[in-house]
């Protein structure tokens, strides 16, 4: 804001200078008239600039009490993040009710508009949210400045994001405005091990990709839809190119058992937890190994060496084969957890998987073991079900109930996608049900379908509904 005021002062001084000299010199009159004729336009632009949603969120007593050090303010002026001091996080305690939201770059404008982050944070804070999960890794690109990825792909940040955030790292901005609004900022590695096959990362290191039994590196189309049934209307089919938001058609999977892939993930995660002022880090169901994968040369060689030359079973769902892969993957999770805590002892390790049985059988994510080993600090289970009975059925399962006794467990609730708008009534029922089952809170997927034009109700009505729902506690 100070730099904006300074800019306006300089502009004003320049205009006064021009007017002064023009009045003094008759020959300058036509130029002056031309200049003055543009004043209404300039004035309107100024009004729009000052009024636009890019302005800073209003200070509230809570925000003021949450003091930001001078060092933090100085840090935000820098384009590249500097190493963060390891400090006690602002939220050493879990909020009484976790109210989180995922902010992604897919089918979303938050990261692509210069005012997107402040606007989103201001609205979330206003409606009493307390946690954001901003995307930092998607489609083989990072949404913060990553020296590690620059060495591999030549880009240290997604190019479009670099254009829309020329002066400040978007993750620095998210942390800065998020903390000012009393929000926990937990960066989210959305794509996990998933990468588009045409991405620079996949093309540079095809040996890092795992393969299916038939040798294909491409993820089967239905592999990730188990928990996200999509209803396709005629209109959505017609609008698919738009609704897909440029989503890659062919996706591959980095092999989570491959040492070089593991090193890449460790490096990326280390960058985030050690260089940014954040409360934790989150992985989701893409931080996994889909059951169809594991037939790549590296994994097969590893299996052969441990099974006296016996090849992996042809049946992808073979119990022992699933167990072996899941255990190898779990070993890496232990290493990752240690690395995170070494670099940021106060950072939470958050996981947002599917319900346990599905996560294990289809994604080889044995998160019950991870929780038992104290590798996970906070769980946000995705329960994307339309029917309330099915939703409550998942919440009542013994695994979730027992996990709830060990760590904070929140429920991930789908607020809709462009293809699949969800009425507020369904969301409300699920929030109330989560509260009734005594979970630690809720997280909504995703920001753009909380309240926007891409919801069944008007944005104002939707905001009002959320305000009332979240004010009930």
């Amino acid at each position, binding site marked *: 804001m100070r730099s904006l005021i300074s800019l306006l002062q300089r502009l004003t001084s320049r205009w006064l200078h021009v007017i002064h000299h023009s009045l003094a010199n008759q020959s300058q009159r036509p130029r002056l008239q031309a200049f003055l004729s543009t004043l209404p*336009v300039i004035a309107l632009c100024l009004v729009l600039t000052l009024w636009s949603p890019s302005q800073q969120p209003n200070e509230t007593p809570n925000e003021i009490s949450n003091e930001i050090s001078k060092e933090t303010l100085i840090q935000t002026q820098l384009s590249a993040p500097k190493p963060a001091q390891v400090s006690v996080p602002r939220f050493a305690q879990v909020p009484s009710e976790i109210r989180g939201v995922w902010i992604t770059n897919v089918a979303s404008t938050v990261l692509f508009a210069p005012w997107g982050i402040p606007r989103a944070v201001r609205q979330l804070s206003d409606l009493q949210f307390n946690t954001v999960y901003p995307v930092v890794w998607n489609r083989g690109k990072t949404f913060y400045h990553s020296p590690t990825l620059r060495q591999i792909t030549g880009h240290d940040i997604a190019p479009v994001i670099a254009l829309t955030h020329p002066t400040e790292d978007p993750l620095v901005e998210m942390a800065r405005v998020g903390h000012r609004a009393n929000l926990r900022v937990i960066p989210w590695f959305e794509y996990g091990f998933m990468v588009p096959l045409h991405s620079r990362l996949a093309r540079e290191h095809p040996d890092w990709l795992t393969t299916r039994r038939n040798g294909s590196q491409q993820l089967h189309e239905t592999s990730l839809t188990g928990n996200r049934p999509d209803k396709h209307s005629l209109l959505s089919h017609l609008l698919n190119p738009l609704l897909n938001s440029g989503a890659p058609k062919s996706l591959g999977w980095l092999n989570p058992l491959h040492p070089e892939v593991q090193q890449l993930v460790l490096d990326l995660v280390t960058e985030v937890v050690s260089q940014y002022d954040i409360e934790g880090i989150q992985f989701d169901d893409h931080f996994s190994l889909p059951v169809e994968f594991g037939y790549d040369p590296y994994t097969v060689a590893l299996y052969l060496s441990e099974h006296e030359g016996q090849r992996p079973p042809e049946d992808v769902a073979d119990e022992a084969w699933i167990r072996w892969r899941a255990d190898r993957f779990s070993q890496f999770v232990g290493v990752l957890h240690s690395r995170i805590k070494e670099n940021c002892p106060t950072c939470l390790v958050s996981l947002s998987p599917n319900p346990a049985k599905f996560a294990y059988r289809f994604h080889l994510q044995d998160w019950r073991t991870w929780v038992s080993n104290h590798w996970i600090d906070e769980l946000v289970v995705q329960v994307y079900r339309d029917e309330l009975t099915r939703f409550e059925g998942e919440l009542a399962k013994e695994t979730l109930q027992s996990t709830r006794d060990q760590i904070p467990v929140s429920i991930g609730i789908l607020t809709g996608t462009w293809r699949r*708008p969800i009425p507020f009534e369904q969301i409300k029922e699920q929030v109330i049900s989560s509260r009734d089952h005594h979970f630690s809170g809720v997280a909504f997927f995703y920001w753009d379908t909380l309240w926007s034009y891409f*919801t069944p109700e008007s944005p*104002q009505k939707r905001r009002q509904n959320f305000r009332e729902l979240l004010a009930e506690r």
Partner: protein
Amino acid sequence: MAFSNFSDSVLDRMTPRWIEFSRRWGLKSVPLVAGATVWLRWTGLTWLAFVGSLLFVEVGERSDLSLMEGVLGGALIGLAQWQILRSHLSHAHRWLIASVLGWGTLTLFHIGALGWMAPGVENLLFRSLLGLVYGAYVGAGLGVAQWLAVRKQVVQAWRWIPLNSGIWAVAIAFGWLVGGSLRAVSHLFISEVFGLMVAWGAIAALSGVGIVGLIYQETYSEKS
């Protein structure tokens, strides 16, 4: 029958009626290219101003726009139209002021948000009827404000009021009909925004015809 024969017969029938219409309403003969250019610029700029206003004004279901949003929306539309009028009317800035004050006043009375508002009903027939009534109301209100701006320059400028009222009634009814139909299929509120874009397209195009007539008819200075 050749097309030229058909068009000649149509023109033969239409021309005397057009001349009579022009004489009765005091219209000057409008040079085709000049008139079309003004119409095209007016239509394009007005519509683009509405699209631009969506960056700052959030479309809602009821008249829950703030006064600031109403003024801002009105200013953007007025600014676009002032760009066209300033080369044809001597005090065109009054049109801009009238737009700002008109939209601001209407917003203050919780009816001016109509240009950025969708009705809270799903029934298409009911939507159309509401569009006709509210559109006529807002069109008349804006028409009065704009009439005040040009009444000293344009002969019989009062005709802008019923014309604008009719344009708004038809356009808003049509836009709400389109928006409601799309929303029934997509279940997304964005459909209403598309509907309003259609409505504003119709408003821009129809009022463009009216404004060409207004600009190219006799002014008081010419009459005297």
